[in-house]
């Protein structure tokens, strides 16, 4: 392995520990519908969205109409629009690889990519691409294993999915090193907890909506920056 290969693999390891069990959980759920396991692999490859695929299982079980599938998936994944928004000027890849990165922009891949913002050299763009590809691979392996083995898997690895909150914790701390504004983090925490209180099921979409509105309103006078008030 070359140097960027190794660092892409190291950076992606927490996602490996998160995606394999989550993918297996999806696969097991999907296998209960009675379809061939290869379709779970296909879903992992072409949909590649955790919550979106769990939703699709529910919709398939209810024989939902295609319009309903479209609207429900669009709403569920609306948060992805914000990821694209925040990466607009920093995704420096061009051509098909750029579109692959956009296609593969999950919560976890976004988090890792947003940490690689500084600089703009060629090795960094290769790293972005490899990270996205590795994460996608882990997810597809998880989905396939789950659907293939079905309910036969006994979990002795309970709790391994904690790798994802641990990853977000580390990335939050690293964001704090980059953006030293405690107010931003406290505000985000408050918004997140408020959204959890209002509706735990829609917490992410609700809190991101509130956060984006606040950030837009605060433009030109961020409320946490005393020098800029009014």
């Amino acid at each position, binding site marked *: 392995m070359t140097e960027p290969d190794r660092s892409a693999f*190291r*950076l992606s*390891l*927490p996602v490996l*520990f998160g995606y394999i069990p989550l993918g297996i959980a999806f696969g097991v759920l999907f296998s209960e519908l009675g379809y061939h396991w290869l379709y779970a692999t*296909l*879903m992992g490859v*072409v*949909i590649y969205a955790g919550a*979106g695929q769990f939703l*699709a299982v529910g*919709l398939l079980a209810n024989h*939902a109409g*295609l319009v309903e*599938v*479209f609207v429900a*998936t*669009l709403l569920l*994944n*609306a948060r*992805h629009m*914000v*990821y*694209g*928004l*925040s990466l607009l*000027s920093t*995704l420096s890849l061009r051509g098909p690889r750029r579109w692959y990165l*956009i296609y593969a*922009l999950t*919560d976890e891949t976004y*988090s890792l990519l*947003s940490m690689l913002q500084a600089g703009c050299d060629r090795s960094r763009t290769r790293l972005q691409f490899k990270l996205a590809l590795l994460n996608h691979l882990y997810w597809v392996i998880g989905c396939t294993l789950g659907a293939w083995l079905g309910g036969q898997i006994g979990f002795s690895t*309970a*709790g*391994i999915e*904690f790798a*994802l*909150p*641990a990853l*977000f*914790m*580390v990335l*939050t*701390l690293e*964001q704090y090193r980059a*953006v030293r*504004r405690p107010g*931003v*983090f406290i*505000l985000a925490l408050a*918004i*997140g907890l408020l959204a959890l209180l209002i509706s735990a099921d829609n*917490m*992410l979409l609700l809190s991101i909506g509130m*956060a*984006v509105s606040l*950030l*837009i309103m605060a433009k030109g006078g*961020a409320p946490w920056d005393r020098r800029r008030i009014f």
Partner: protein
Amino acid sequence: MGSTAYLLSVIAVAALATFLTRALPFLLLYRWAQHPLLQHLGRYLPPVLMVLLLLYALKDALVSGQYLLPSLLSLALVTALQLLLRNPLLSILSGTGLYMLLIQTLPPG
């Protein structure tokens, strides 16, 4: 039995909808990437989103209270290690290991 065609259509539609949510900003806003408002969002959204994703990943523990204590203890370990040694992999693996140990050996609660 026609259900394969239905399954494939659902997969195609879900894939299209997911891709649209990821691609829309790039399709619609790329021209204005240097606009001050988008620059502002690009600067402050990552820290805000990271906090929100962290809360979202802890949602079940926060809402039900189950495994809340193991979660908080493990996050404390992750935070301490990351602040002291700044080795992301070590922090994440140690925190995950502690969490697995706690939930597999302690009664739920």
